[in-house]
Structure formats: C-alpha cells, structure tokens
C-alpha cells in the first residue's frame, strides 16, 4: 500500500481552496461548509443502527469486520513479548478455524515496530493481498504536544523501521485556536516524513481526536482539513480520550469522505477507533459505511476498526454461527 503523492495532494488542495492554505483561506473554506445538525445526525445514525443483519449477511459481516481490524496495543507497559503475542493473534485469530480471515494490521507504538515486523515475517504486507500491515502511532501520540521536529523524527523513525502506516494526531490546541494553517502544515510535513528512500510512502492516518473537538461542526472541518492536507485516512480517536469513536461521528466523517470523492474522485479511508467492543456495534458501522459511501469502502485500504477486544467478540459470534451455540471467553485466545 502506498499513500498518495504529495505533490498531487498539495495541488489538489490549492485547486479546492483557491489559494495558499493559510489560516484565512482555510477559515473561509472550512467555515463555508454546510453545518451539521446534531439531532438530525444522531437520528440518522440511530436509524442505520436498526438494520437487522442476519444469517448469511451476518456471517459475511463478521468476516469483513475481522479483515478490517487494526489489532492494537498502545500501552506504556508494551514489551516485545506482548507485541509478538499480538502479532500471533493477528495472523491466526482463531486457531480452531482455518477459514478465519486475518486482521488488516497491527497497531503499535513506534518503538515496537521492529518487533512487530520481525514477528510477522512472511505475513507482513498489504492487507488487500491478505497480508498484515504494521501501523505505528506517531507525532507525540496521544496528545501531540511536542515540537514539529520531534513529531517528524518520530514519524521518520517508525517508517524507517518498517511501518506501513502512520497514525498521527492533529494539534487539537492549534485547531481549536483557529490556527488551521498550522494544522495543515503539520499534516503535510508528517506526510512528507512518511516517504521512504525508494520514493514510496507509508499511508497516513490522521487522528482528529473527536472527543476533544467536541462539536460535530468541528469534526467536519477537521475532516476536510486533514484530507486537504494529504491524509489518506481520517481516524476518529486515539482511544485515550472519552468519548472515542461513536456512530454519529463516524457517519459524519463518512459523509465528508463521500463528498470529497464526489468532488475530486479520490477515495479517502475512515477509521473509527476506541470503544467499539461488540460485534453488534461493529456491524452497525459496516451498515453505515455501505449505505453512506458504498460497500466498495469495506476494504482494508478504505475502512478500518481500531480495536482490540472487538476481535474476540467477533470470534465468539463466528463460532456461534458455526456451531449453533455460544461458547465462552476461554474458547477464544487472549493476546
């Protein structure tokens, strides 16, 4: 997987904005986008949540969910051993059933990337080919409170260690202070830092941390801003702030992605992360994706779940479909 070329991203942004991406131009553009009615948005999300996905559709949905998971460990206590365990789970989520798909990626802190790459071995590669990517959080995750140089070094180091995807955080402080140009420049710079010596580039996921942006209008503007600056994916949350991913926020981001696609023809990915633990909830996200942007988005390079405990719930549901009865927590493996 490779990210979009930087030059085209910048040209596209200039064309859409009609000027240099400074604070004033961005403000004019982002504040000119139609507002969001919170009640209506939440109603629509709730409506999508009532879809009843049964039998064959459910089986298909569960496998799709697994193939879209970024299996994640982001703890201060992470060790090479923990990462190896996570990778083993990612490669073989259900050792009792060989038909179980693999997850899309493992998501770790930057310093854990070498261990993840090493543990994956031959399974490391593009999830669209059935292999597993390594995603690294970077840019002073989760707060993003450090200098740009440090953020860029953080990114470059992870890419050099073999990360295929970088999950960066935006500077929410700058965003809320109206310094859209600064946020834009930082995303563009991190995007540049994702580039490898051979000219290819790691894919860039831009974390908005919607729980700190608070309003839907802010989420919509931050989504546009991140896409304009060259993000390949927009991601809801770090998982470290509550609320993390919600269905209305994800719906809103999908609407932005849909509108961007209509306007430019380019497809941007969406990653809800944090707080999605049950298969039932994850299925609601699939429905929302399919009915908002279309089911072509239900592929690893256009949609991901950032989750850890979700996988085991999906496996339990999967076993239930196969055997007709529910097993228990000890019939799926911990990582």
């Amino acid at each position, binding site marked *: 997987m490779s990210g979009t070329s930087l030059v085209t991203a910048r040209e596209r942004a200039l064309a859409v904005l009609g000027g240099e991406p400074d604070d004033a131009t961005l403000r004019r553009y982002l504040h000119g986008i*139609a*507002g*969001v*009615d919170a*009640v*209506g*948005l939440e*109603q*629509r999300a709730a409506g999508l949540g*009532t*879809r*009843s*996905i*049964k*039998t*064959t*559709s*459910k089986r*298909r*949905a569960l496998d*799709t969910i697994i193939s879209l998971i970024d299996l994640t460990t982001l703890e201060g206590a992470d060790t090479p051993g923990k990462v190896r365990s996570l990778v083993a789970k990612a490669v073989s989520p259900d050792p009792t059933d060989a038909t179980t798909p693999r997850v899309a990626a493992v998501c770790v802190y930057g310093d854990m990337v070498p261990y993840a790459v090493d543990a994956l071995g031959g399974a490391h590669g593009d999830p669209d080919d059935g292999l597993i990517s390594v995603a690294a959080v970077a840019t002073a995750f989760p707060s993003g409170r450090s200098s740009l140089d440090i953020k860029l070094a953080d990114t470059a180091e992870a890419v050099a260690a073999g990360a295929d995807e970088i999950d960066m955080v935006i500077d929410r402080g700058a965003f809320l202070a109206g310094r859209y140009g600064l946020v834009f420049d930082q995303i563009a710079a991190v995007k540049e830092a994702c580039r490898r010596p051979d000219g290819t580039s790691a894919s860039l996921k831009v974390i908005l941390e919607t729980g700190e942006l608070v309003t839907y209008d802010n989420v919509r503007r931050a989504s546009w801003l991140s896409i304009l600056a060259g993000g390949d994916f927009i991601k809801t949350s770090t998982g470290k702030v509550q609320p993390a991913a919600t269905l209305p926020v994800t719906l809103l981001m999908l*609407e932005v992605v849909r509108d961007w696609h209509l306007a430019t023809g380019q497809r941007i990915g969406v990653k809800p992360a944090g707080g999605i633990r049950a298969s039932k909830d994850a299925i609601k996200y*699939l429905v929302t994706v*399919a*009915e908002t942007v279309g*089911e072509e988005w*239900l592929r690893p390079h256009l949609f991901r779940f950032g989750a850890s405990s979700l996988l085991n719930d999906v496996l339990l549901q999967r076993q239930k479909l196969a055997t007709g009865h529910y097993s228990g927590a000890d019939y799926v493996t911990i990582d």
Partner: protein
Amino acid sequence: MSFLEYAPAPESRAILSLRDSYGLFIDGEFVDGRGTPFQTISPASEEKIATIANANEADVADAVAAARHAYDRTWSRMSGRDRGKYLFRIARLVQERSRELAVAESLDNGKPIKESRDVDVPLVAAWFFYYAGWADKLDHAGLGADPRSLGVAAQVIPWNFPLLMLAWKIAPALAAGNTVVLKPAETTPLSALIFAEILQQAGLPAGVVNIITGAGDTGAALVAHEGVDKVAFTGSTAVGRAIAKQIAGTDKKVTLELGGKAANIVFDDAPIDQAIEGIVNGIFFNQGHVCCAGSRLLVQENIHDEVVERLKLRLSTLRLGDPLDKNTDIGAINSKEQLERIRELSDVGEAEGAERWSVPCVIPENGFWYAPTIFTNVQTSSRIAREEIFGPVLSVLTFRTPAEAIAKANNTPYGLSAGIWTDKGSRILAVADQLRAGVIWANTFNRFDPSSPFGGYKESGYGREGGRHGLAAYLAPRAVSAAGRGAAKASLAGPATAMPIEAADGAPDLETRAASRRAPRSAKPSKRGAAK
C-alpha cells in the same frame, strides 16, 4: 453477493393469534354485525387476513346507546383519578403487547415494521400515558375549574396510522370523561380490534369504548346519530367537509383533522445532510400516507441541483419490499384505490411538464406498490403542487428569497404543517412566524409528541389534538352551570318534562346533567328551523 443485499430479516407473525372473523366491539363484547361482512387484506400480498363485521344503522344505534349508558352510569361519575388508572393500565398493556400490535399494523396497513415498531406503537403508549396523567388534573386544562365532559364522542379515523389515530382520539376523550364510539377505516380495522381485546384485558367498564367497523356509510350513520355529542374526524378534506355540513345546526361539537400539502423549505445555509434526511423522512415516511407529509419541497434556487442530486443518491439506498422485513424502508400502498390515485396524479404531473424520477427498484408482483418518486421542474400552478397526493411522491419547487418561500408555502388551501431548514436560528423564528400552518418543524420533520398540539389552518381542519389543547375538544367550561344551561335550553325548547323524571331516578346530580343535554336535542328540528 453484495453486502447491501441484506438477508431477509422478517419479523415473526407467530406472535399474532388472529381470529378468522371479528365482530363489532359493543358494550364490552364482540357481537355480530348486521351489515354484510367484508375482508381485510394485506396490501403487500393481497392475502386475506380476516373477515370483519359491518355495522349497519341498527348496530350504530346499539353502540351509541351502549356508550350513552356507560357515560351515564359509570364513566361520567368516576373520579378523574380512577379514569387515569384505566388509561395507565391501557398504556402499559399497549407496551406489553407492542410487538403484536406492530405486526398486526404492518400486516394490515402495509407500513414497514420498523415504523410501526419504532414510531406508531411507542407513540400510542405515550399518548395514553400522557392523557392518563391529565385525567385528574382537568381543572388545569385551561377551561376553568371543574370543566365538564361532553358525553358520547363519535370518532372516525383513517387508514394511514390506524392505531395511532385511535390513540389520538380515544385517550383525550376518556381522560376528559367522555365515552366513545370509534370507527376505524375499512381497510385497516385489525389493530383497533386487537386494541378492543386490550380494553377487555384492562377491565375497562363495558360500553366506555365501542369499536364498530364498516365503510363510509357506517361512519356517516355514526356521525349523524342523534345521541352523539361530539364528532372527531381525521381523514380527507372532502369527507371532512361532508361531515361539517351534516352536523351544521346541531349542537354537536366537532374537530376535523384533514388533508395537507406541506411545504418543506430548505434554505441555502441548511445542514445539508440532515436536510436530505428530513426531506426523505418528510415525504417517504409511511409511503407518504401522512396528512402532514412534506410533499412540496421548496428549495432555494442556488442549491436546487445539489439537493436534487443528493436526494436521488439517498433515495437509491431505500429498500422497498415486505413490510414485515425489519430492513424495509418503504412498504406497500394501503389500497388499490389509493395506488390508482397516486398513479393518476403522477401522470398529471408528467403531462404538466414536470420531470419525473423514480427510484429504480424491483416492485413485488403481488400487492400495491409505488416506487419513491420525485418531480422536478414543478410550478406552483401544477396540480401536483396543489393537490394532496397522499403517496411517495415529492414535488420540488424553488424560491429565491425568504419572502418568496413564505408566499409559496402559504399559497395552498391547506395549512397543516411546514418544515424549515436553516442553520440560522433567527430565520427559523422569523419564517415560522409567517407560515400559516398548525405544526412547524425546524430542522426536522414528522416528529410527534403527545404534549404538542396538532391541527390545521384553512382546509386542513379545525381543532387541535394532543397536548392541553387537545383536551379542549372533549371538555366544556363549567361557567354555565349544568342546571342553568339545562333550564335555559329547556325554555327554548319548550317544556322540559324529561328533567324532573330523570332526576328522580337515583343519581340526581349526574342524571340531571345528562338530561339537560338530552332535552334540547329532542327539540332540535324546531331550533334549527328557528335559526334559519
């Protein structure tokens, strides 16, 4: 296989235990009707569901007599608190049997189960809960202390929300102390008859609610019956007009909730994605069989193309099909007659030069179906912009300024509802202030709440249902004392010999009240003659 081809998820019909045939619910029991029975069918499959009794004039008279008796002997004497207890009990039973009611409603009406389950039935329970609370607080209904009930209410309801309209009618009537004879629509009697079973289960005193089934002639006989004190009708403007004529000159009180051709006004600063949802919900909710449906989309000209394009994209995701499937968005048209009317008016729209676009979807073989349709290039002079289609058909018109939007929105013989979409709060207030419509939604559409009054301007009817205002339709102020009113009318009508006789039999106070209302009625012809 596509993920979006969701596997069938039908709600089970096993929860329904329907009888082969249903009688009339009179005086607490199901009795045979004396008219020719008719079939009720599922509009989605044309499958026969049950045989339904048909009430003739004699049956109507029995039902009114039962209601009168229950009013005199039981309901008007009962304390508000006790009436409230019955209403609370009914509300809880509706909740307990909600799934059954939802299945019956979708089966008989053709509306998607997700709507009957998530909208109709919960609102029915909410309506009974709300008015249950009012039953012992009528002093605060805005009519002064101790307002009095009217007597027997004749209620005729339509087929679009069979159970919800029943609740809108019965709940306030009972809370206010009236008794009821209700006639559900000919094509959708099923849920009302299940509701009759709930009344039996609740132990509601016999005769307080009577449910008689039949067609228009049954309704006409009921409205015309002498023993009726109050008429409440929801349905077409044509029938409403006929009822108004029929009862003119009598002292029957009346509320009419009739047709509409609501404007849904979308300004260029609207929250666009939510506005699209609101437009869809405004006209395609319940297949557009909604009197307050947002059937005229007034969109600011500078965003017209974008809105239409987004609307088409959104409509393409709607699922039309089996009403009992939990993923169905658009169910069946309620009857063949209605389908023909929708077709006829749509053809008129095309002939008038409007551009028609229908969702490309597979239409089931049996049953009555109409694909969601929008007409663009519609002018204010087009028939499809003036007449109520009562189906899943949206007419799109444009405007340039708020003043023009208001003028176009008001340029209709109806005035039931309207919608305003804008991010600017002050504009919502300014525009709402000038719209002549009984219900105005801002940045939403088709939302109902028992505490909010509902009703129309102009040909959309008169009177309000819901909220405190809804009680006024079933109460009269005590200002004219019972005795005083009776005496005054009696003197008009000549010697009121009935009064002392009735007052003598046991319960002086209440019986006097009943008699005082009946005495003038016997003198009606002369009174009417005098007035003319």
